[in-house]
């Protein structure tokens, strides 16, 4: 498989302490790659190293098949767009004037400004001073800046931060569409599993600076299968029936948690529990949290 981003043994040390350890990232072309991990896991540090914003302690980065070094960094990054942490802007200038600066530096046509403004739905606010923008609008401007020049790789660090629910949905849809509409590869970081579920084709999970999982989203779902939660009147009776049926269960927050069953199996089990006097009064599907996935991936509890 051809990878647009490939790192080998990527490591960052601060005062001797490794905050990113031996990360081998492999981002396939024309997909959305979700880079997940709890806060402080090393997501932003890794992305900053890809962009050359911080020095790499060890390892190497290749973008578009070319090893990045001090000499070719800017030339390679010309074909990328990025939005790292908070959006970057000149508050005393209008949105359009901000984009003109990026357009001049990227040496792209002025017509592209209108295109990206349309893409992030900012045409009407383009002549307003950016200091008067809401955080969501600034985030959109940051995204527009990243999209200028039609980059083949877009690196976005938690792009939905600070957006309202409608804005979050809009940005997710936009990210989702970019590989199909424009052939871009989007490397997007988040600490929300649900968010990745809606956007990503591939995922990488980083924890305590180490890449602990990297594969297709479906492969992650193998680890994060939903559980079934039951709330019953008589737990003793319920436990007895479950044991008899050979279904493993755990007691969590007063509920019985079972592995997810097929719909017909679930229906049969509920029937038996009711007949057996367990008194089922709530049945719900419970998706595994990122912490629980960490637990299943690493066998130890990761702090989120």
């Amino acid at each position, binding site marked *: 498989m051809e990878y647009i981003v490939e790192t080998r043994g990527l490591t960052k040390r601060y005062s001797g302490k490794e905050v990113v350890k031996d990360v081998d990232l492999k981002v396939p072309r024309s997909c959305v790659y979700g880079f997940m991990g709890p806060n402080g896991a090393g997501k932003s540090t890794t992305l*900053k190293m890809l*962009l*050359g*914003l*911080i*020095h790499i302690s060890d390892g190497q980065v290749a973008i578009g098949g070319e090893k990045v070094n001090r000499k070719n960094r*800017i030339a390679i*990054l*010309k074909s*990328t767009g*990025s939005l*790292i*942490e*908070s*959006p*970057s*802007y*000149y*508050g*005393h*200038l209008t949105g359009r*004037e901000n984009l*003109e*600066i*990026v357009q*001049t*530096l*990227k*040496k792209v046509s002025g017509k592209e400004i209108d295109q990206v403004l349309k893409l992030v739905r900012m045409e009407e606010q383009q002549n307003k001073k*950016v200091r008067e923008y809401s955080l969501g609008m600034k985030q959109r401007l940051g995204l527009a*800046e990243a999209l200028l020049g039609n980059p083949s790789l877009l690196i976005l660090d938690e792009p939905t931060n600070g957006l309202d629910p409608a804005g979050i949905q809009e940005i997710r849809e936009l990210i989702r569409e970019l590989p199909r509409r424009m052939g871009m590869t989007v490397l997007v970081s988040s600490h929300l599993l649900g968010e990745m579920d809606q956007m990503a084709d591939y995922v990488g999970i980083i924890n305590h600076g180490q890449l602990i999982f990297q594969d297709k989203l479906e492969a992650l779902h193998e680890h994060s299968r939903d559980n079934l939660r039951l709330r019953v009147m008589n737990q003793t009776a319920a436990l007895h029936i479950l044991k008899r049926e050979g279904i493993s269960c755990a007691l969590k927050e007063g509920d019985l948690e079972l592995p997810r069953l097929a719909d017909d199996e679930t229906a049969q089990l509920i029937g038996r529990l009711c007949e057996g006097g367990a008194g089922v009064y709530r049945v719900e599907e419970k998706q595994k949290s990122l912490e629980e996935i960490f637990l299943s991936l690493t066998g130890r509890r990761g702090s989120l």
Partner: protein
Amino acid sequence: MLGEWKTEWMKVRHRKIALIPAAFLLFTFLWLSWAAGSVHMESAEDGWLWLLMCLGLVNTILVPTMAAMLASRLCDVELKGNTLKLLCTMERKGRLFDMKLLTGASYLSVYVAAELVMMVAFGRMHHFAGEITLRLLVCFLLQSGLVSLGVLLLQMMLSLFSANQILPLAVGLAGSFLGLFSWFMQSPFWRPVVWAYYNLLGYIGQDWDVESRIVSYYEVPMDRQALIIFLIALPVGYVLGRRLFIRRTPGCG
């Protein structure tokens, strides 16, 4: 490079930065006019020397503050909007540093050129005898242009690395005072102090005749040792500052 140079001017649109040197120039003119009114101009043949001496002193007091304000206005746009991490993906860090310095130096050059024009106009207005010699002109450019560039470089560094621009502004003000003290206290202690070079690179002497109460001005050779130190320190300071900026670009840590 032209694109990068152009963006520096695009960034400072609506900031009215040119008002800073304009205001300082006006203040300098008013100061000189007041000073000219309080001295007897019997010795009009000394007029140019008096004017150059005054301008050197006024620049010692005003330019460090102006350079601090200029550097702060040019650099805080990057820090306020957290733009360095975006710029550094499109522009070499060293080039960005150069362009910032060049923009500041452009304002400074226009300021020094405007001072020269103002000086000539001032001399004509007061009917000073003779003309400014080429030597005096070169000395003025070395004293006011070169030293101001060194001061601007220092202020740029401080402004680029200070989230709060009060610190560089305070340093600029302190520099004004230090520079002023250096005119009245001769000591080798001043050699490492950048603001003192307005005095150390002085090229005009004065004699105060107690009986006649007349001050006469005369040309003196510039302190070559001080000039050499400054000519070495300026590029060294530039290289070190640039390297520091590349290694520790704020917002990219």
